[in-house]
């Protein structure tokens, strides 16, 4: 998979739902269409719910990856305002 340019990174480790998505959504709202947000998290349920919610909001999920025993990375491209 080719590398994508990450425009903004947020670390929401320690947060649980729904604040995982609240934080992610606030972050992507402030970005431009076409930019990519990378989210670092450690709440397993959010590794499933954030991608689903982001797609429900019309954005494109580029990657969901478990990077170690506790953490995940999600990359989302903003597709609409």
């Amino acid at each position, binding site marked *: 998979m080719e590398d994508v340019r990450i425009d903004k990174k947020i670390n929401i480790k320690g947060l649980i739902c*729904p*604040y995982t*998505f*609240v*934080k992610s*959504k*606030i972050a992507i*709202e402030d970005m431009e269409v076409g930019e990519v947000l990378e989210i670092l998290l450690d709440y397993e349920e959010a590794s499933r719910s954030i991608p689903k*919610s982001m797609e*429900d*909001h*019309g954005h494109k999920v580029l990657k969901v990856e478990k990077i170690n025993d506790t953490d995940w990375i999600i990359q989302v491209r903003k597709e609409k305002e």
Partner: protein
Amino acid sequence: MELTEDQLHRYSRHIILPEVGGKGQKKILSAKVFIVGAGGLGCPVGYYLAAAGVGTIGMIDNDTVELSNLQRQIAHSTKKLGVHKVDSAKETFESLNPDVKVIGIKDRISKDNILDLIKDYDIVVDGSDNFPTRYLVNDACVMLKKPLVSGAILRFEGQVTTILPGEGHCYRCLFEEMPPPGLVPSCQEAGVLGAITGVVGALQATEVLKLILGKGDVLKNTLLIYDALKVNFRRVKVPKNQNCPVCSDNPTITELQDYDAGYCRI
């Protein structure tokens, strides 16, 4: 304006809605809504708008809390008997949400003060209990082009309509003149099931929030009628009256009138 951590938590169920988000919540926090009456309708409207984070809520009412109010006027309480309703409501709403500033006005709304009172607000809500006020508020909102969410309740029935001057109908397109005094009974004469005020007030608050957010449809050119006994909601189309005395292109009412003539206020 950035939302604080507390605000992200307080409004999280709003923020995760696609139609609201952080941007919509900021619109709500910046909004200014004026509520006519701190009674049966004003209480639930103000309560939900305060919970939603509407930044400035103006309220006018000249009455004090009486025991007979507490069957439906949920912003007040037994320990507030004798207190001005706007003071009681202000304490309730501001303790629910410190983001909200309530400006209470202890006065009767009249043709002499209404334009000045509502001019700095974005949206007006009518929660009054009498026809002279209903027509006064309608005419003033048409003249100032202020969106108006009007509600009414009696016995087991409620009505809600949203007036967008210049776009849709107004209250006089629906009922051109006030009914003669005595024809329509007041709540005092006919009674009202307390919970109905919550249904209608929550519908009014919802209309206000959609107007602030610019999302969804509102009750423009429509009267919503709720019949609690039959558990029925009915939508009645209300076309704009091209000859409306106040909102047509050639209005015959161009200044506010003496609406109280012949009416006894309760």
